[in-house]
């Protein structure tokens, strides 16, 4: 096995974004098998971090920095992976579009959810804060995501989660997506009321929810 895979794994565990990018660039430059780099390097690393998190040994900065390093490195490999280089193929566990709803500019909770989903093997597309329903849909269609995850921290912006579900119904595309919601003032009751496919109180529960929905 190429020693670089172990280095990539360690870079992810350390949450070293710069090193992850550097190693990914080396993979491309030296024409090392990118699928193996993903499977034996990036995924092995993030799995390790995910395990430590579940055991209560890792804390948020560990997981979030590892997820950032993973994303940065994978972005470098995107081109060669898309070109079909390497032996076999690489499959993520599912694609998720994640964002904070229109009118709301809070993003920390969302970022935590994104990191934990990444650590659990999902491919997360974070579209950022203050995002309209159509922005969620546009991104999902672009990348082929099935889950739209919408965050809201304020009682005044919760209604934008409802707007998202209504928008899908109005466009007759409701069945194409699973909508999940979360954020401080939200509740299971609110999720049921607006017709969301799921609600989670914590980031860990959001991971479980996505696993169930994509099964």
């Amino acid at each position: 096995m190429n020693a670089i895979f172990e280095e990539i794994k360690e870079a992810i565990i350390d949450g070293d974004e710069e090193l992850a990018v550097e190693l990914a660039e080396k993979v491309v430059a030296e024409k090392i098998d990118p699928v193996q780099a993903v499977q034996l390097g990036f995924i092995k690393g993030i799995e390790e971090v995910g395990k430590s998190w579940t055991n209560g040994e890792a804390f948020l900065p560990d997981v979030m920095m590892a997820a950032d390093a993973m994303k940065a490195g994978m972005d470098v490999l995107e081109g060669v992976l898309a070109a079909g280089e390497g032996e076999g193929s690489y499959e993520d566990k599912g694609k998720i579009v994640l964002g904070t709803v229109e009118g709301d500019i809070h993003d920390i909770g969302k970022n935590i959810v994104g990191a934990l989903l990444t650590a659990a093997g999902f491919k997360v597309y974070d579209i950022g804060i203050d995002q309209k329903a159509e922005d969620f849909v546009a991104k999902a269609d672009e990348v082929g995501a099935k889950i739209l995850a919408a965050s809201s921290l304020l009682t005044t912006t919760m209604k934008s989660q409802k707007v998202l579900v209504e928008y899908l119904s109005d466009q007759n595309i409701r069945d194409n997506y699973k909508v999940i919601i979360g954020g401080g003032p939200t509740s299971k009751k609110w999720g049921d009321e607006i017709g969301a496919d799921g609600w989670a109180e914590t980031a860990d529960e959001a991971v479980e929810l996505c696993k169930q929905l994509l099964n």
Partner: protein
Amino acid sequence: MMLPKFDILTIEQVDKIHKNSMKILNEIGVEFSYDPVIEIFKKHGQRVEGHRVYFDPEFVENMVEKAPSQFTLHARNPEHNLVCGGENIIYMPGYGAPFVYEADGLKRDATMDDYNNFVKLAGASKNMHMTGGTVVEPTDVEDEIRHLEMAYSHIINSDKCFMGSSSGYEHAKDSIEMTALLHGGMDVIKEKPALICLINSVTPLKYDDRMLGGLMAYAETGQAMVIASLVMSGSTGPATMAGALSLQNAEVLAGITLAQCINPGTPVVYGSTSAVTDMSTGSLSIGNPENALFTSASAQFARFYGVPCRGGGGLTDSKTVDAQAGYESMMVLFAASTTGVNFVMHTAGILQYYMAMSYEKFMVDDEIAGMILRYLKGFDCDSDEKMAFDVIEKVGPGGHFLTQKHTRKNFKLEFFRPALSDRQSFDGWSKDSLDTNQRAKLKWQEVLASYVPPALDPEVNEKILTYIEERSKELLKK
């Protein structure tokens, strides 16, 4: 006489943090999303790039100096007028919780009925000086008109001071107009501020449209405002205490500077709710020594800048009224009260880092507040009677004081009398074996049942109701 408040930072530490904050304001700057505010800062000669404002430290110091060191907040019953600042402390219920947690552990959405109940409990309490604001988020009232219903609840259910909406310029204006009707006109309250609101920064280093609109409405009419920053150390701010405090301080100073630019001398309160991030869940954690330290340091910084301070409260991360709820709440409220915080939002009712209000917790915190208010009075050594030499002489060696007139008179003046704590013998207690949570439930039901709101002049009431009706029509049409 009140107990002297103590400092927790040395002069050198204050100086270092102050300079660090000024460097943040000057070199990193603060983002204000609201265009009218950007114009104000440009007019005052501050460097502006897009929506980011880079402050001149001397300008900030000069503007902060214009803020009054204390001010009087006027109630409809003048007996409840409050001086905010100096040695004074003002307690009120929790603010902004969307949920109510019941005694048996049930979690539910807060309603307008809950809102009225908490205002009444605060009205009835001798330890709550104000009825607060947004005592819960009444989720059964439409968003557009919620601020009108909430303000009316404070007006009709009590004659104590209260807080108004800061949710955008328009809603803020409505609260101010209603308060003007209550006090006999806008001119009256411009002269004698009667409303105060909460303006929050979005940490790190931002203020949003909604809050800036609210800030402008209050500053323009000379009403008071708390300008507060909640740094979640470790997530929205650095994980070091000194770094987080520097960041908070920069944000609050930027807000105070803005208020003073709009209306020099407008009453402001230096606010802090900074605490830490729980690194296993990412959630805010408020029932801890770090929060107590941030609170006490904020009180000291407010003294340093010559403005009143808001901070602390009966703060806990517990989900139910248990020992954790009690010890955490006591720690933060005690720290706030003994180190010089003047304005304590969230004194009573909060569970789970501001997420929920609880009636039982309200009663527990009310008890804690009563204990601390007594503690703050300290020792009275001002008269011979208080020194009690005569009665000690009279009883002499080996006697007892229980049958002395001096005792009968003075224990009532000097001892804190618990409303909730159980001091019975084991046998006495074990007849019902009620724990604090269960006793608190009985207590709030009793208080609510016997509470009679102070009468409001029917003519004034009519004017306010008409205002609400007309505004509701307009707002719901949009």
